[in-house]
């Protein structure tokens, strides 16, 4: 397993956000985490990337416990996140945003190589290279956030709501690219409210409810699960 969460709990002050979550992501998979607002999806992401310390449980990455590791060291180990709300640096150009993604890396030739790879995945980013991040449209910012996360050459890509606020056509496009990134060898853990898209693209998925995992299965299984259909797919 590339990533294993075992019994992870996390609290914001007195509010318990995660109640002993266990999940795993194997090398080469796309795993989706679906659930309603406030279910703890983003909190799980923040625990994995090291933005919030876990109060209990362990996070193992590549066979080693990283639950006490500083966020920057997790990036160096190969965990990269595209945060909720995209987190674009508005005053930096597209190019500079992408360079920030390679902040922990030194090898210039490799960085340039990855920059070209991102430009190939997102041709629009090349067009907008010198434009500042704050002037991009929502969809472009999402592409930039995903591209930036790729710039650290991660083993595991964490995507927090890549479809948020996007038009249906763009959602399709973003998910196509996610699958493409995965086929190029990057493992993906993604959090989504758009359960339909997430489940149809993911190999496996977990359903999160109020800080607990209530269901797991392959994407196809959950897509046809009556309870999931009822709660998350908007069809009776």
């Amino acid at each position, binding site marked *: 397993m590339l990533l294993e969460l075992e019994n992870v709990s996390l609290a914001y002050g007195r509010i318990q956000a995660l109640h002993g979550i266990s999940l795993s992501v194997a090398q080469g998979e796309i795993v989706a985490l679906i659930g309603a607002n406030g279910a703890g999806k983003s909190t799980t992401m923040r625990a994995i990337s090291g933005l919030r310390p876990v109060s209990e449980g362990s996070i193992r990455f590549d066979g080693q416990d990283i639950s006490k590791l500083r*966020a*920057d060291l997790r990036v160096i180990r190969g965990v990269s996140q595209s945060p909720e709300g995209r*987190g674009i640096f508005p005053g930096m150009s597209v190019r500079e945003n992408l360079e920030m993604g390679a902040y922990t890396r030194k090898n210039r030739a490799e960085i340039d190589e990855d920059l070209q790879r991102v430009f190939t995945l997102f041709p629009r980013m090349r067009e907008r290279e010198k434009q*500042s991040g704050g*002037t991009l*449209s929502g969809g472009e910012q999402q592409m930039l956030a995903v591209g930036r996360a790729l710039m650290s050459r991660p083993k595991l890509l964490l995507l927090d709501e890549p479809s948020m606020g996007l038009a249906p056509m763009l959602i399709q496009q973003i998910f196509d690219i996610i699958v493409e990134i995965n086929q190029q060898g990057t493992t993906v853990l993604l959090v989504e409210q758009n359960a339909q898209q997430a489940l149809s693209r993911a190999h496996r998925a977990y359903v999160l409810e109020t800080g607990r995992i209530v269901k797991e299965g392959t994407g196809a299984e959950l897509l046809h699960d009556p309870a999931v259909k009822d709660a998350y797919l908007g069809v009776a």
Partner: protein
Amino acid sequence: MSDTAVAPPKAKQNFRGNGGVRGWFGRQPTWVRAIVTLVALGLAILLPYAGDVPLIGPQIVTQGIDWPSSLFNMSYYVLLALGLNVVVGYAGLLDLGYVGFFAIGAYGTALLTSRDSLLYAHSGWSWLAAAPVALAITMAAGLILGWPTLRLRGDYLAIVTLGFAEIIRIVATSTPNFLRGDRGFTNIPHPPGQGADGKPIFGVTDATPYFWLGLAVIVVVILGVRNLDRSRVGRSWLAIREDEEAAEIMGVRTTRFKLWAFAIGAFIGGLGGVLFAGEQGFINSQTFVLQFSILVLAGVVMGGSGNMAGAILGGALISYIPDRLRGISDPFFHTDLYEYRFAIFGVVIIVIMVLRPQGLIPSRRRAMELKDREKEVAPL
């Protein structure tokens, strides 16, 4: 927010703007820029003689305070604005107690050099010997204050820094033997050096040499900060300021870089204090009031937070305008206009904030960040 697969063609907004004086300056070859910079520096060096320029000279120089002294005042205000700009403008940390570091620099110098100091028997140092020690103390104070507080964000940090400066002032007023309150420290030695005529260069009658000293320090600080800003450190500050969480996700060690900004800001503020003590020869707790911090912050914001040219202009203005008002009385109550300085400032700042919220010489990135935050407040 509307998203379409093919975004409508936008007016191409280039990252480096092309307009205005700065656009022109940016397009010039290096040698032209070097010459322009040197000419500006030359003019700054000649500022003490501005009064001799026919017609405009007398309009520029101050009346109620001698012109070289006013210039020296400007030099340490500019220094403070440059230092605070690192903290507020680059790293985006709101520091409302910046005068605290100025005070530590000045008190550090006084404690080591003044005859009134409890330490005098052991120290009684020269100004030049005391300066580095005072600066080291100031920087250490920056780290000590920053270490526990930089985990706080925004408003909380502002309150802690405000408290910090007040603690220093109150300790100074309430320790009659150590920091000597209102009585203060007298006989703080001036910087060293003798002229050709055998008289000390840094005397009590003419502030011109102090201004030049201040100017030299400013140039060194500008070069130092500019180098930092263009390095990985500057890039880290920028990322933290624009989105702290995203910066952390990229692998920026946010607490460390915030601490660096704080310590460097403290160091520059301390430099101002050391210079101030060396020129005045006397300091007491009345100098280090809260308004001082607010004034410097107003200068930075007014000039253009995040841009050194803006900070320099803002710092110079907050010192120059009140000094220029000295010795002019209003037609109604015949009070010196200097007494109205805060009221006048209030109006000036409101006008600038309405007409030019990004400051007189804005940082382009800052302007973009402001725009981005507006979007957050009122999503379309």
